[in-house]
């Protein structure tokens, strides 16, 4: 530790002074961040630890007065139940469905956002500026409002249905049946993608903005195609931003409630609505176990990010 090493010839008093100055700095620094840390501990760390502990020490059993929670010595019983008991069939399905929807959403999201961000970065003129503004709009619209907008646009009897009918497309192309896009998995994916476009485009755009034009020009000069430039230059140089956007979207989609509740199918449910149902059914411990599973998945994804960033720094 070179900082704490005293220079030769320095007196003990000076060293002492420096040390106490640093101590003061520490104290001020920690006291400034302590409200934030305290809030984190009270609102997140403690409830999370309590949830984990609860799920290890509680099970749900049927009693003459209804379902009751029973304590026991720590074990993974509730998770075992969650994965084998027929009563929790739908909760298992919720876990699978949530992961499925999240992965599909992320694939669609990046398939749209990379080209879009590249267009906004390298395009010239007024049109890209217009699209840049347009792509930010979802950022300012609460999900509950966009979900209702999706309903009033896509639901049977609403805008798109009426439009297709008036253009006689519904009769000629779809056999007179409106091909509804919401109230199913597609509905969730569409709305989740729509909601995540701004932040993803912003992050990828920031990464792309740091790339020197000359780098791309020289690649062009030696005959690299668009895909080669993307795979060889743009993607590797925006990997950090990609990972941040990936994690934000992953955790956001996995934990979402409004969109799957309003635009998803009756069943299977995503974890958000499933947890909510379990709470209203007074099956708190099941909701808690699902919350812990959500933490765990989010933590694994977060870890991937940390590992990737550390690796990149070491390079």
């Amino acid at each position, binding site marked *: 530790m070179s900082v704490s090493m005293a220079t030769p010839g320095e007196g003990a008093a000076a060293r002492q002074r420096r040390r106490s100055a640093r101590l003061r700095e520490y104290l001020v620094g920690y006291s400034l961040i302590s409200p934030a840390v305290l809030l984190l501990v009270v609102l997140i760390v403690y409830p999370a630890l309590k949830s984990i502990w609860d799920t290890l020490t509680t099970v749900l059993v049927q009693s003459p007065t209804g379902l009751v929670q029973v304590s026991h010595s720590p074990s993974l019983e509730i998770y075992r139940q969650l994965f084998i008991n027929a009563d929790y069939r739908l909760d298992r399905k919720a876990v699978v469905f949530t992961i499925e929807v999240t992965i599909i959403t992320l694939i669609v999201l990046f398939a749209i956002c990379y080209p879009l961000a590249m267009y906004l970065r390298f395009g010239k003129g007024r049109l890209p500026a217009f699209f840049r503004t347009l792509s930010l709009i979802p950022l300012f619209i609460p999900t509950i409002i966009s979900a209702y907008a999706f309903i009033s646009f896509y639901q*049977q009897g609403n805008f798109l249905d009426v439009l297709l009918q008036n253009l006689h497309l519904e009769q000629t192309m779809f056999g007179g049946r409106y091909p509804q896009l919401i109230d199913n998995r597609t509905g969730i994916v569409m709305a989740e993608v729509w909601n995540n476009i701004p932040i993803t485009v912003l992050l990828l755009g920031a990464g792309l903005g740091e790339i020197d034009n000359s780098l791309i020009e020289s690649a062009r000069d030696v005959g690299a195609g668009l895909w080669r430039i993307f795979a060889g230059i743009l993607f590797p140089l925006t990997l950090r931003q990609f990972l941040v956007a990936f994690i934000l979207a992953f955790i956001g989609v996995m934990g979402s409630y409004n969109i799957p509740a309003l635009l998803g199918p*009756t069943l299977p449910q995503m974890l958000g609505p499933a947890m909510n149902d379990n709470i209203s059914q007074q099956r708190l411990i099941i909701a808690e176990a699902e919350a812990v599973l959500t933490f765990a998945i989010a933590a694994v994804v977060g870890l991937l990010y940390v590992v990737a960033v550390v690796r990149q720094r070491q390079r």
Partner: protein
Amino acid sequence: MRTRSRLVGRSVAALAVTVGLTLSSDFMPTRHAAAAAKSTIYFTSIGDVNVADLYRNTLIPDFNKAFPQYTVKFTEILHGINDQSLVVDNMTAAMNAGKSSVNLDVYEDSPLNYVYPAGKTFKDYFLPLTVKDIPNIAKIDPKVQAPAYGYGVAYRASAVTLVYNSQQVSTPPKTYSQLLAWIKANPGKFTYCSPADGGSGDYFVAAAIRSVMSASDYAALRKGYNTGLEKHWPKAWAILKALEPDLYQNGYHPSGNVAVLNLLAKGTISMGTAWSDQGLSALAKGVLPSYMHMTQLNPPFPGGPAFMSVPKLAQNPAGAKVFLNFILSPAEQAKIAVAIQGFPGIEFKYLPASVVKHFGTIASGYDTGWPGGPYDKDLQRLWKLNVPSS
């Protein structure tokens, strides 16, 4: 309705705030300044915004005009969020602290909806209310009054009804089996909301359960929780499962009562179940077009009264009883019917003909036999496991 107020509460959980409003200053009578000592009545409601408005704007001002010797202090626990701890647990604390009274005289809910400490029941927390204290109780149908075991008065009610598009349906079904036949004959034109998301779906399912239970078993549901009575429920799941392909979007269940009304309003579906008060309000506001008609089956869908009760620790039980009797008077009951489109607590025969006419065919009544409570939780859980295709 607890079912609904809880659901509404959930959907706006972000608004989980307790709104405490003291309105006493509005009701200081000036004309009777020299009258005898005034006494205060503390009144707490857990109703939705429309119910709170009814109190603030109509019932409490009316009461003050009629009984200037009382001051009503009104508090609203919006959507009843955290009502257990705010009301019952607080009373427990007061009892443990040896207090002889609390500032709560009239509480707008049934004592039976709460959990009491081991060894205690609602009878230890609330006062029995009889015709002797509150003469207008005699005007309430005993069947409507029964669920509170004499510890609450039914002051308004709502029931699940059938709403249909009269442009598309000329003769609506009259019984549950006719309704099922209609749904099968008109695929895609009916749906009900997920039972956990709204009472209008919950009670449609309860009607299916009732159709597979013997009358005596169904009546026994009211006597306490016994899973043995659920043994024939799988038949109801089979009926509802078979119905799924013929529902809107091959078995899509909207999330909540209002979502069903929206589908009806758009003409997307031709028939659905709805709460009487929500349907009538939507009609009155024009949210539902006037060609949407409401009707009731025979036997009717379940419904339920909302109760008011008086705690044992009330600091002014006499005033509370005067207040309750006033709320049950035909004139005020008619105002409830108009203001929130709610069924009155007292029987329709005591109300002016114009009010009764307003309710039309749905004034025929509702089923008071469905018990709710743990049976409702089982209904919601088992429906989800057995009915929708996943």
